[in-house]
């Protein structure tokens, strides 16, 4: 059975929307990090799904691999920064991290 393109695109859009809401409403830095991963996965779903109808299917699939690899690198950097901030401030709540303003 082949799932129609529209359904996959709608799924990816919903995933993206959930991630977006997470980024905007979460207060915990780790929560925001996970929401960003959701956004990236929505992109991957989109890329792979478009690659099925594209004249250049390899481009999309290859792109998705690069996105996965870079998401891992970004998560490593992000978690390192979170650890560093926990060491100096003892919190990872973004609303409590506010030394710099305006």
């Amino acid at each position, binding site marked *: 059975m082949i799932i129609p393109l529209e359904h996959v695109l709608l799924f990816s859009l919903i995933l993206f929307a959930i991630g977006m809401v997470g980024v905007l409403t979460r207060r915990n830095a780790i929560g925001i990090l996970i929401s960003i991963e959701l956004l990236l996965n929505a*992109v991957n779903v989109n890329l792979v799904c478009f690659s099925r109808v594209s004249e*250049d299917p390899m481009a999309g699939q290859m*792109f998705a691999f690069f996105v996965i690899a870079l998401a891992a690198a970004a998560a490593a*950097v992000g978690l390192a920064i*979170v650890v560093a901030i926990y*060491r100096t401030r003892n919190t990872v709540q973004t609303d409590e991290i506010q030394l710099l303003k305006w």
Partner: protein
Amino acid sequence: MNGPNVKDLALLLPELILVCTALALILAARRIQKTPWAAALTVLAAVAAALASAWLLSGGSKTGFGGMITVDAYSQFFKVLIASALALVTLLSVTADRPSRPDPRTHRPKDPQTHRPKPRPAEYHALLLLASTGMMFAASAVDLLILYLGLELATLCSYILVGITVEKPTSNEAAIKYFLLGSFASALLLYGIALAYGATGATDYAAIASAFSSRGPGSHRILLAAIGLLAAGLAFKIAAFPFHAWAPDAYQGASTPVAAFLATASKAAGLAALGRVCLVAFAAEARVLSSVLAGLAGLSIIVGSIMALSQTDMKRLLAYSSIAHAGYALLGFVSGTPEGAEATMTYVFLYVFMTLGAFGVVIALGQRGESLNGYQGLAAQRPGTAALMLLFLLSLTGIPPTAGFTAKFVVILSIVRAGHLALAVLAVVCSVVWAFVYLRVAVLMYMKEPQEPAPSYFSVAVYTALAVAALVTIIGGIFPGSLATWVVSP
């Protein structure tokens, strides 16, 4: 499309020089304890990369790696600019990483095991080199994949550079804010890329452009969403209006040379990428793009100018200055013509040197340079330094005969030619606001009594960087035509 070829590697000579130096520094990190060694190596690599970029151009425009990388006047111009910014930032950071004392007000050590971390010159310079490599890739990308990889390499390194002083709470905070907003913007950019790929079936610019023109403008709603998301993602990289919030925090929290690097090299790379995306890939949608860019530019100029009025921190002031300048630089792209792109290129070139000069003076003054009050009576204590700062501030304002005037003149001329008179008036009016902001510093320097002891003299490296920046700022103002030989349409 032909497959990769070993000969194509020659096209990446500048990037390869930077990457190899960075890897050598990482491998030898434990042995390199002195900053001057790492700095000397980095400056050498940057100069070699700049020369290699210029040399590659002599063979004419080429593309390689299956049409993913291009070497043309546009890319090489930005590569030379990024390499020069890298060299100057490296020179400026020679004094800046003297062992920093943690701020007693905010620093509360939680763990007795954490001593003050050792300075890590090799890692710092390796990150600068790798970030510059990513920016160079973004400048020569003609495929959305390479664009994304280059920008990510640059921003991932920048996140670490902002947070590299791990013992400083402000640095940590700046890093996390920059990281969270940056990753969010990258996700938007990626979603835009995915939509563009879905609508056109390709990721390389030429194929996207031909798919566009075969469909005719405005035919596809998905493409408009793609353009919006791509513009949003790239606006973050250059800190233009709706995505500018990270810049003041990141600049204030980061060490000053890193802030200078973000304000110059990173912005140049973002503009290079944005310019090529707008003028090559989405050229068929010029009408939509031009209104999006005009909006971004106008709002960046207004928001940057208004927010700068109330700043008391020099680095935040320069951050808002960089936001407004990003708006001015975007003005060139609004017209969507090669002449407009040339105006932006001239603007970015001159902007990089005058901003590096201003940051250089901030660095030279050390802790004192970071707040506006630290400039009180500087002219009486260090007339030379004060005169240099005045030169850079006049140039940032855009007063002749400095480079800033030439830069503002060319971009405003380009939008007047494109028929956006309202935008041109706005740009000029906001220049007046900036005159007030910058001259406030000049008044503090020349008309107030000194409050603090005179700053110590600074190192030869900082003098060299300041001299280069000052030279370009003066020459760019006196001979505005001299850049035209370099500047070629993309």
